[in-house]
């Protein structure tokens, strides 16, 4: 049994209920426009709830029928929208959570330390975290890339990048 499907189904059910409840405060339809702002969202909430129930139901049924059948109306063959495939076999959770965590930290730091300092810090730490051993190359690449991005966006395109507390 795929517990992930059940959990996702429940999260989607709760979300659709929350989404539906948010439509309650919308004004009613006007005279000229008979559906009103709440109609389409209400419809979507209903469809999402239906699909979420279907996902949960399918997962239970799939367990009853045969273990390997997956979750419901499986499309046969290779008819998949490209670029959604995901085939990572050997995942390092240190790499994954490290990359995600550092990226969030980086964006938070940009407003405080400014673009230049935080970008160099972010690059050096992330490259090191992903177990690239050569410090010299690491620092050279990080500084070089930060300079390139600065030249491209701030100088060539005229974007005002955050300067941070040390430069303003």
């Amino acid at each position: 049994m795929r517990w992930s499907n059940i959990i996702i189904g429940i999260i989607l059910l709760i979300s659709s209920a929350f989404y539906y409840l948010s439509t309650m405060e919308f004004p009613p339809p006007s005279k000229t426009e008979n559906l009103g702002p709440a109609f389409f969202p209400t419809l979507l909430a209903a469809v999402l709830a239906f699909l979420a129930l279907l996902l949960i139901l399918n997962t239970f049924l799939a367990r009853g029928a045969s273990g390997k059948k997956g979750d419901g109306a499986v499309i046969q063959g290779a008819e998949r929208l490209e670029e959604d495939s995901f085939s990572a076999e050997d995942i390092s959770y240190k790499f994954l959570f490290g990359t995600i965590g550092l990226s969030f930290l980086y964006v938070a730091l940009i407003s405080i330390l400014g673009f230049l300092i935080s970008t160099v810090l972010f690059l050096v730490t992330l490259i090191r975290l992903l177990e690239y051993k050569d410090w010299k190359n690491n620092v050279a690449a990080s500084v070089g890339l930060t300079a390139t991005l600065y030249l491209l966006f701030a100088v060539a395109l005229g974007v005002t990048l955050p300067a941070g507390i040390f430069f303003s």
Partner: protein
Amino acid sequence: MLHNFMLGASIAFAPMSLLFILFGVLWGILGGALPGITGSIAMALLLPLTFSMAPSVALMMLAGVYIGAMYGSSITAILIRTPGAPASAATIFDGYELHKQGRSGVALGISLYTGTIGGLFSVVVLIALAVPLANVALAFGPPEYFGMTIFGLAIISSLAGKSMVKGLISGVVGLILATVGMDPFSGIPRFTYGIEELLGGIDLIAAMIGLFAVSEVFIQAAEKGSWAKVDEAFASKLPTWAELKSTARATTLGTIIGTIVGIMPGAGGTIGGFIAYNEGKRWSKTPEKFGNGSLEGVAAPESANNAVTGGAMVPLLAFGIPGSNAAAIMLGALMLQGLRPGPMLFQNSPDIVYSLFVGMIIGNIFMLVTGYIFIKPCIKIVNISKPILMASIMALVTVGCYAINNNINDVWIALILGVVGYLMRKYDFSPSAMVLAMILGFMVETSLRRSLVISYGNISCFYTRPIALALIVLALITLIFPIIRAIREDRKGNKNTRPAV
């Protein structure tokens, strides 16, 4: 029409345009060659740069990236048996085999030449189809647009992901995200929960960068081990004229299949490549060679994935409906400039449409000219270590998203949706279907509501108008057919197992 072409050519042949098309093609070849970086990711990374360009130049550059990436992905498919993008997945069967036989240059050359043929043919089909279709679409009213958008969404969602339910969920969540922001009719804020930045809706560019590029960085970074190093010294002998001619049948098949697959929403280079490989084998005079280094086995998928590029632009330009990630990004670039593709674009800004036609032809020719010389620099960059590359992309994404509106909130949206995209892909949902639904959501809702305003609330407008009715019926068939087929196969399966029990 001829006048419009002259106008388009005058824009496309301007020195700055040529320079940006060339840059786009080279960036595309590089992105295509890098494992994990697909054509649409390479396009998404350039999106923030386009806000300062003329819309026509931005579109031509992005089309160049799309074209180049389709060829670029075959470089790593042939040399290290890792397709740079899924579009070249079918190329590894024979391409890598040829490389092992010491005929790498022949395989790469065939990929380049047949890809150019496929690409150029598809642009001709694009021109032949888009102009008359856009004229037809001019007569479309809101009910027809409603039918068209839900038909497109039905195909995209049902093709996406391993399970149809999950594909549909991805689509519906995309539609839900599209309702965030100001209500298009009454102007009241919906689902903004008091956050002022959400009044204009969730920024599509940031969403695309997050769902496509950031999620890929997380996936690549989490994977242990690095890519295989590419040997810079490979047999560089190019194919002879006779060798190229021997692939004529496969190239023709691949080109036609790729163009048709490209036009269909939801299908793209990957599906086109695989179908072309199978058909190429079926119709080949020497099918036994397939899998053992057949030139036709490279020509079929590589002509097909390049032919997808022109086909994919047909629904985008004629109806304003993107059917693939790449088309969605082109649409994003137009919207960044306050424009919407569709039949009105032909009327109001023919310069943009026709310069794109000419620009795509130029892009294909640039690819042909630079494609071979550029292999070596590509290999050098592919050999850069993965940690440095992934960190660089993350920094580029951050600055790029910030630059869209000079706003740090867009970066947060990209990051959060990057995590969402990662989880979606991990649990077999489809970020692509979600993005396309986010784009089409506005059109679905406005066309539905506008239809009912025009018909005074009478839903008969959806079944008394033949085109609208046909499209809605097609959408229903698309949604119901896979379920019927699944039930049937289930029954067949039960029958087969019964005697054994």
